[in-house]
């Protein structure tokens, strides 16, 4: 950007003459875009939850009319009783909304946008307008997917993995517009993620504040950086696959149509080549933010910072060569199965390293249990179960028994709900003051945490057991099989726990909205943390700093012998610190 534009940018930080529309709707401020992502993806999280409740009703009380089911159209749930075709729409849409429109935008859309410029000390993203477009393409994708719920013959119904040829031909699935809208919406999500990722990567590489060297970056920024690279390289493959699926659905091409030479397995290869980096996109930011919160809560530097960074990088690289473990029994070449098994088992090692490092951080710490710390510790506890249950599937012979059963459903919910969503509850509470200038209620936060923790485990742990018994996934009514009938009481128990879990989220919902206006006013550094963002007033002003801060040390100097207090912010200059050498500066 020419120097003329730059001074204007500097001036902008002083006074704000932008109109309401430019300031809040079509805003190019990374913080406002982060908050826009937050509101939209929390809404989609609610939609995903509602779909899950309907599924749990059908599984817990098959054939009985669902309370409130009258609102559903007769073709889907006559008299409130859910029909099979509606049930597989619920399965598909629950997975799609949660993965693409709730967890991924909450982790990457919200926290990459909000945290990266603040934590590395810069005014805004490298390309503010592209960043704005990333949100709006995401919103268009979300609205297209939401509209596909209301089209006449119903939404897509081939599972969130959309296996061809069931997804490619409407005479097999029974839905035409719904399936096509799914593909169109996924193309928008892909485009939105690519625009976002290229922004985060350029900003982190070129716009770090003086003194913020690579190994002084907080682990949340490291994980968001590696996640951006995964997103950048994985989402185009999904968009390409969705385009080919859309052409199969509309123009009649034969990519995945075996009758005319296409290959059904090709879709699975394309989808899971994107799919596995995707599930690391869904967990790495959570790991990074949990590392920040645990270090803060333990008042102790993170244990083994460098090995944590190398673990994130290792997970990212290995993430590209493991996708075949989703296809062990899909008819894929068995020799490929062996190679994917080895790479999958190797990827368990960096996760183990991270878990032990979190525990090392808490060891001999001075643990302070604010709500984010509760969620972070619960993340470690639950993610361990999710990670360990993953090893059962990596062993190929055992996978033959538990593939596509509820054991897999339990595994994915332990890493996605127990992992990412617990980390998100913690992260939202942790950075809420910097976003809105007010604190969320601490007691209500604790009530919500404990109830969620209990009902969450009651809902998802029994799924391991019914999965071991062989209960297949996506069954409208498992009682058709005599060997599954004895597990109906367990399914009722799971459904009731799920309803209670959903009800508990009301507490978070109210706490979130009530604290926006009525919450206790937030001081500048409520958690006494070292990050650069806490050098700004709450809520952080437009353009962040007038003069970019200078960084003198790493992000985790808690209980440092150099100072009396038990935290030492990165931006605080001690007499012994020397100014970082100002090297010729990269782009702006």
């Amino acid at each position, binding site marked *: 950007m020419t120097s003329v534009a730059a001074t204007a940018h500097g001036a902008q930080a002083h006074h704000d003459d932008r109109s309401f529309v430019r300031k809040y709707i079509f805003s190019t401020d990374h913080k406002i875009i982060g908050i826009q992502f937050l509101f939209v993806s929390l809404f989609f999280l609610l939609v995903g939850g509602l779909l899950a409740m309907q599924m749990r009703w059908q599984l817990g009380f098959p054939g009985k009319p669902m309370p409130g089911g009258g609102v559903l159209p007769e073709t889907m749930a006559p008299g409130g009783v859910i029909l*099979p*075709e509606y049930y*597989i729409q619920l399965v598909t849409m629950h997975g799609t909304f949660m993965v693409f429109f709730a967890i991924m935008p909450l982790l990457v859309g919200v926290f990459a946008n909000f945290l990266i410029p603040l934590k590395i000390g810069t005014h805004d993203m490298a390309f503010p307008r592209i960043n704005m477009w990333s949100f709006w393409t995401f919103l268009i994708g979300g609205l297209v997917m939401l509209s596909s719920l209301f089209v006449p013959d119903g939404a897509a*119904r081939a*599972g969130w993995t959309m*296996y061809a*040829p*069931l997804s490619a031909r409407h005479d*097999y699935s029974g839905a035409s517009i719904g399936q096509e809208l799914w593909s169109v919406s996924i193309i928008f999500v892909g485009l939105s993620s690519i625009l976002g990722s290229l922004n985060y990567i350029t900003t982190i590489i070129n716009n770090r504040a003086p003194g913020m060297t690579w190994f002084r970056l907080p682990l949340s920024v490291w994980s968001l950086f590696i996640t951006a690279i995964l997103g950048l390289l994985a989402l185009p493959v999904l968009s390409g696959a969705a385009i080919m699926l859309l052409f199969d659905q509309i123009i009649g091409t034969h990519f995945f149509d*075996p009758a005319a030479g296409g*290959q*059904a*397995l090709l879709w699975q290869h394309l989808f899971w080549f994107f799919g596995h980096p995707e599930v690391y996109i869904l967990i790495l930011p959570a790991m990074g933010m949990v590392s920040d919160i645990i270090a803060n809560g333990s*008042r102790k530097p993170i*244990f083994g*910072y460098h090995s944590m960074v190398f673990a994130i990088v290792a997970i990212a690289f290995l993430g590209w060569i493991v996708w075949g473990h989703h296809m062990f029994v*899909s*008819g894929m070449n068995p020799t490929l199965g*062996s190679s994917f*098994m*080895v790479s999958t088992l190797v990827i*368990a*090692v960096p996760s183990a390293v991270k878990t*032990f490092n979190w*525990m*090392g951080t*808490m*060891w*001999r*710490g*001075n*643990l302070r*249990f604010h709500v984010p710390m509760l969620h972070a*510790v619960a993340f*470690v*506890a639950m993610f361990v*179960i999710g990670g*360990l*249950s993953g*090893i*059962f599937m990596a062993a*190929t*012979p*055992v996978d*033959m*028994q538990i593939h*596509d*059963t509820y054991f897999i459903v339990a595994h994915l919910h332990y890493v996605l709900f127990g992992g990412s969503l617990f980390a998100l509850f913690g992260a939202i509470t942790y950075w809420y003051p910097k976003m809105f200038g007010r604190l969320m209620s601490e007691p209500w936060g604790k009530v919500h945490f404990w109830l969620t923790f209990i009902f969450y485990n009651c809902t998802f742990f029994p799924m391991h*057991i019914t999965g071991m*018994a*062989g209960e*297949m*996934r*996506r069954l*409208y009514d498992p009682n058709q*099989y005599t*060997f599954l009938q004895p597990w109906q009481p*367990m399914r009722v128990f799971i459904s009731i726990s799920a309803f209670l879990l959903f009800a508990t989220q009301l507490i978070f919902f109210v706490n979130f909205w009530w604290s926006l206006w009525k919450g206790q006013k937030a001081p500048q550094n409520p958690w006494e943390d070292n990050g650069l963002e806490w050098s700004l007033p709450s809520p952080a002003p437009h353009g962040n700093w007038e003069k970019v801060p200078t960084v003198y040390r790493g992000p985790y100097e808690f209980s440092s*012998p150099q100072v009396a207090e*038990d935290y030492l912010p990165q931006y605080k200059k001690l007499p012994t610190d020397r100014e970082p050498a100002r090297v010729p500066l990269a782009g702006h």
Partner: protein
Amino acid sequence: MHWWLPLKASTFTGPIDGLFLAILIITGIAFVLVEVGLIWFVVKYRQRPGRKAFYTHGNTRAEVIWTTIPAVTMVALGLVSNHYWVQIKGRNSIPPNAYPIGIHAKQFEWQITYPGADGKLGTGDDFTVRNQLHVPVGRPIMVQLSSEDVIHSFYVPQFRVRQDVVPGMDIKAWFQATVPGTYELGCSQLCGLGHYRMRAQVFVQTQDDYDAWMKQAAQEASQ
């Protein structure tokens, strides 16, 4: 209620259940280590006034230990799993004397073709039965899986056998039943609105019961 893996009714249950138990023990130890460690740390290192955390940036020796132990365990697990995987699913894992049965999956039913008296598929005396899989006990059975429309999945929990049936591909899987009885064959890959009721009955019979049934079923089919 049978809290463990389903009834053991095929030769696969030995390796698969054994491996399942081994992994459960390994992960169980890791689970207890981590969870008890977490609870102990949460209680022992609670914040107390005037106390300052131990200022350390890590310990490479500890890092090396908890990197190599999981790595070694995983490699061992990988070798054992691969050994059984090649036996169960490998390219030439199907025993030569396996008894062929053709299974054609279509949206929401299984059409099972029996080789008839000559024991060979594709000969004149084959006959097809819907949703009924009769299998002689104690002999390796080779199922030739084909699908007419979408991806289904051949899954009998008691035999620990699962193999996706992909349209456009002829996939062979094998198993050997050991315990006579009636079980159920389910479809474990979402194949449309009738996925949940795509169920067939599996009868494991002694050899002569099987021959008797086959003779009788062949006549019925020929009328």
